[in-house]
C-alpha cells in the first residue's frame, strides 16, 4: 500500500520534473546566451500550444505534424521578436523587462480576442495509460518525459559539440569579447531566440495535451520556469535538469504530507533557503 504510493510518487516526480524541464529549457537558453529574463517565454509557450491546437483540431492535420509546424512557426516568431523587440534593448535591463512584460500582455490579449478564452485541450499525442504493479503513467506524460529528456540532451550536445554552440557559450561569457573574435553575435542571438521559442512551442503543445489551453496558462508556469533557472544557476543549461528535478520533487511530494496552500509556502521556503546558501544557484557561475 505505502510502497504503491511511494512508487507512484517517484513516477509523479519524474513526470512533473520533465514537464518543468521542458518548459524551463528555452527560458534558460535565452537567459544564458542573451542574458535576458524573457518573461514573455510563458506567453510564447501559450501561443505555441494554441497554434498546435488550431492545426490539429480546427484544421485537422496530423498531430505530430502540427507540433512540428507550431515549433517552426514559433521559431520564426522568435526570429521576429529578437529582431524587433529584444535586439535594441539587450544591454538595458530596465527596457528589456518592460518589453517582455508588454509582450505577455499583448500575446495574451491577442489570443483572447482571436481564439477566445474557452478552455481547450489538444487531444492526447500518445493515448492510453501505461500500468505496472500499481503505478500508472499516461502516454502523454511518458512522451513528455522522453521528449523533454531528448531535447535537453540535444540542446546540451548542440551547445557542446557544434561551432554555433561554442559561439553561444562564448557570447554568454563575454558578448563584447565574442564580437571581437568575429562572431556574428546578432546571428547567434537570433538562432538562440528561435531555438528557445521553438522549445517553448513544444512545451506548450505537450502541456496543451497534458493540462489544458487557456490564454493565461503561462502565468504559473512562468514562475516555475524562473524558479528552476534560478535554482540551476544563471548560465547553466545542464543545471536545468537538477533544478527541474528539485522543483518536481517538491511539488510532487509535498502535497502528500502538507495539504493546500501550505504546500506552496513550504516549497518556496526550501527554495529561498537553497538560494541563500548558494546564491549563484547550484551550477551558476557568479553572484
Amino acid at each position, binding site marked *: 500500500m505505502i510502497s504503491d504510493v511511494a512508487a507512484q510518487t517517484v513516477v509523479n516526480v519524474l513526470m512533473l520534473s520533465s514537464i518543468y524541464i521542458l518548459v524551463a529549457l528555452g527560458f534558460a537558453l535565452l537567459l544564458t546566451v542573451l542574458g535576458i*529574463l524573457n*518573461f514573455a517565454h510563458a506567453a510564447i509557450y501559450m501561443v505555441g500550444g494554441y497554434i498546435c491546437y488550431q492545426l490539429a483540431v480546427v484544421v485537422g492535420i496530423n498531430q505530430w505534424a502540427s507540433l512540428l509546424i507550431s515549433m517552426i512557426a514559433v521559431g520564426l516568431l522568435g526570429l521576429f521578436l529578437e529582431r524587433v523587440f529584444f535586439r*535594441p*534593448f539587450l*544591454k*538595458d*535591463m*530596465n*527596457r528589456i*523587462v*518592460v*518589453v517582455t*512584460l*508588454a*509582450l505577455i*500582455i*499583448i500575446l*495574451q*490579449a491577442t489570443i*483572447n*480576442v482571436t481564439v477566445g478564452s474557452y478552455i481547450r485541450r489538444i487531444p492526447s499525442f500518445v493515448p492510453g495509460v501505461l500500468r505496472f504493479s500499481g503505478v500508472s503513467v499516461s502516454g502523454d506524460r511518458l512522451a513528455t518525459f522522453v521528449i523533454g529528456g531528448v531535447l535537453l540532451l540535444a540542446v546540451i550536445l548542440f551547445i557542446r559539440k557544434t561551432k554555433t554552440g561554442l559561439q553561444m557559450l562564448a557570447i554568454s561569457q563575454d558578448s*563584447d569579447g565574442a564580437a571581437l573574435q568575429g562572431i556574428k553575435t546578432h546571428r547567434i542571438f537570433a538562432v538562440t531566440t528561435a531555438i528557445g521559442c521553438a522549445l517553448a512551442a513544444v512545451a506548450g503543445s505537450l502541456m496543451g495535451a497534458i493540462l489544458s489551453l487557456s490564454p493565461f496558462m503561462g*502565468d504559473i508556469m512562468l*514562475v516555475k520556469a*524562473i*524558479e528552476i533557472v*534560478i535554482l540551476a544557476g*544563471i548560465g547553466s543549461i545542464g543545471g536545468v535538469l537538477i533544478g527541474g528535478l528539485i522543483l518536481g520533487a517538491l511539488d510532487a511530494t509535498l502535497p502528500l504530507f502538507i495539504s*493546500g*496552500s*501550505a504546500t*506552496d*509556502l513550504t516549497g*518556496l*521556503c526550501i*527554495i*529561498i533557503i537553497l*538560494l*541563500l546558501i548558494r*546564491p*549563484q544557484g547550484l551550477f551558476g557561475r557568479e*553572484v
Partner: protein
Amino acid sequence: MVAGEHAPSGGRNWIKTVAYAGLIILLFLLPLFVDSVYYLHTFIITLIYTIAACSLRTILISGQLSIAHAAFMGLGAYVSSIFARELNWTPWLTIPLGGVSAMVVGVLAGYPLTRVRAIYFSMVSLFVGLAIVALMGVFQKYTGGDIGLIGIPPLPSITIPGLPTINFLSSKIPYYYFFLLLTVFCLMILHSLENSRIGMSWKAIAQSYLVASSVGINEAGFRVLALAVGCFFAGIAGAGYAHYNMVLTRSSFGFLSSVNLLIYVLVGGTGSFFGPIIGTTVLVIVPEIFRWLKTFAPFVFGGIMLLVVFFMPQGIAGLFEQVKTKFLHFQERKKPRDVS
C-alpha cells in the same frame, strides 16, 4: 538597473517651488471639478499606487530591483485590517502598524538578501514575495484565503471643533483628501531621503558596491535601510488601501501585482523622482479611460509600455530630459551605443 543621478538644480528654484505648490493646489481643488465618484475612485487608487511605486523606486535606487513589493503592500494591508477587525483597534493606529510590520519583515528578509546582488536579488525577492502571499493563504482563518477578507472597518470619522464632522463613509471626497495628504507626506519624506546623504550612499552602492564599500559605505546596512524604508511606505499604502477598499484578496498582491508596480516605475522612468508618479498616473488612468474597449483594453496598457520602451529610453520622465537635450545640444544627434 541603476537609477540615474540628479542633475544639479539650477537657479530656477523659485519656479520649481511655484510649480510644486501649483500642482498640489490643483490636486486639492480636483474634487471640485470631478463629480464622478468613479473617477475619484480612480484617482484614489492612483494615489495609493503612487506611494507604493515611489517607495519601490527608493529600493531601486539602492541597486535592488525588488519583485516583491506588492507582497509587502499586502502585508501592511492584512496586518492593519486584522488588527482593526479582530481587536477593534482604530485604523489611525493600525495603518502605521501595517507599515511597521511590512518594514520589520522587509528588514528580516533584507539581511539574508544582502548576500545576493543584481538579478539574483531580484529573483530571491520574487520568491520572498511569493512566500509572503503563500503565508496569507496559510492563515486563512485571519486572511480569508483566496476568497478574501471583508468587514474591514473604514477610516473612522474625524470631528474637528467648529467644522462639520468628516465622515469617510459618506462619500469618496474625504478619502481623496486623506490619500492626497498621505501621498504628499510620504513623497516628501522619500524625496528628502533621496537627496540626503543616505540617498547618495544608496546611489553610490547602486553604481558600484565595491567602490562604495571602499569609501567606507556600509553596503549591507544601507541596502537593508533602503528595503526598510521602501517596505514601510509600501505597508502604509497597502494599509490605507485596505481601509479604503474594505475588502482584500491575496491575489491582489501576487507576482503579477508586484510586476505591475515595477512596470509603473520603469515606464515612468527610474532616473527621476517623478518617474513613478508619472508612470502610475499614466498606467492607472489611461487604461481606465479605455475601459470601453473591453477585451481589447489590454492592448492599451501593452501599447503604452511598448511606446515608452521604443521612444523613451529613460521612461516617460526621461522624455523631458531628452527633449531638453535635443534643444540644448542638438549637435550630438548621434548617441553612442550603450555598452555596459
